[in-house]
């Protein structure tokens, strides 16, 4: 059952990337927009409105950068193309769609599902640790953004916003590293010392 569920999730993800990112529906703005609405609704249904809002806030800097580059390239008529803005708008929909669908898909795989999968012990260990680290570290991103938004260290620099974003990514990397170490240690300790009571 767990295998079927996980397989379905990966089939859906493959179908999404096959159709909406690398396939025939990539250029269909109305379909991308509709999918974004559906994914946001699903995120809100799963984690509440606040969660959907936070997810949007997370992708917003990337989306705004895409739009800003699109506008600049369009204005400059880069490479003689006149479709830069249209292209950026599409990417500004495709990016959040990809982020939300992968997030929703991976979040729907539970620890129980992983236990039910026909995996070798080593692979199961990594899958459990990956899931635990993801669950632990995802909410931290918002906290890191809060801290970096407040930090005065890059004030007045032209690249301040970019450096703050880099700070979030570096802090997240440190966190993931620390959390992976801790979780692996905890997992190994429990498998070595804990026994199921008869």
């Amino acid at each position: 059952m767990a295998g079927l569920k996980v397989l379905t999730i990966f089939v859906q993800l493959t179908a999404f990337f096959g159709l909406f990112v690398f396939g025939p529906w990539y250029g269909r703005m109305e379909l991308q927009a509709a999918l974004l609405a559906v994914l946001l609704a699903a995120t809100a249904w799963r984690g509440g409105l606040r969660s959907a809002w936070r997810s949007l806030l997370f992708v917003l800097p990337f989306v705004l950068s895409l739009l800003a580059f699109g506008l600049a390239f369009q204005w400059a008529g880069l490479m003689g193309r006149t479709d830069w803005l249209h292209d950026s708008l599409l990417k500004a929909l495709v990016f959040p769609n990809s982020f939300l669908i992968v997030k929703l898909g991976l979040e729907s795989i539970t620890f129980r599902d992983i236990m039910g999968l026909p995996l070798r012990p080593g692979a199961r260990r990594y899958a459990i640790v990956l899931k635990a680290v993801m669950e632990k570290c995802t909410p931290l991103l918002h906290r890191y953004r809060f801290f970096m938004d407040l930090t005065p260290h890059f004030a007045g620099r032209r690249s301040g916003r970019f450096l703050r974003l880099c700070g979030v990514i570096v802090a997240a990397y440190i966190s993931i590293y620390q959390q992976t170490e801790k979780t692996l240690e905890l997992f190994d300790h429990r498998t070595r010392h804990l026994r199921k009571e008869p």
Partner: protein
Amino acid sequence: MLELAAGTYPVPHAGLRYELARDLRLPRGSWLRLRGENGAGKTTFLEHVLIPHLKERHCLLYLAQDMDLQQNTMRATLALMGLEAPQGLADLASAWIEAGGCQEVVILDEFDKYLTAPQLDALDLGRFGWVVQVSHLERPGVRPDLPGGFELSFVRPDAGRPEVHLGLERLWPA
């Protein structure tokens, strides 16, 4: 002047509504202590009321309660500035404060729990225009490094209701 107008400040997602009866107006060289029981909403007030109001007008440094997380952003910041990030928390905080180049507002949310008294003294908080501090340590009589001392107390009359009354008291000079 560090200011927050009298009024009601709702923080809906935390289920709290702060009621400040009179204007908070602190001259440069002030120390403001936030006092209240655990769960009275001091950190929520800092992060959702005071900091959003102050950050538009002042340069501020915030040392949060969850330093185990914030230290990762401190390390990242120092690394991005090409500076070395010390291992110990006190040295790290000190390096981060120095690198910030900000001398206006410093906000410490129970940061004293991570440092010894000499380490805290080494931060030289008196050089800042305003020091805002949440602390469960005993209230000092007078801080000679800061001419004005104030205390903002958080009273939640009914834990089931959102109202939090904020009362301002001058500690020194008398």
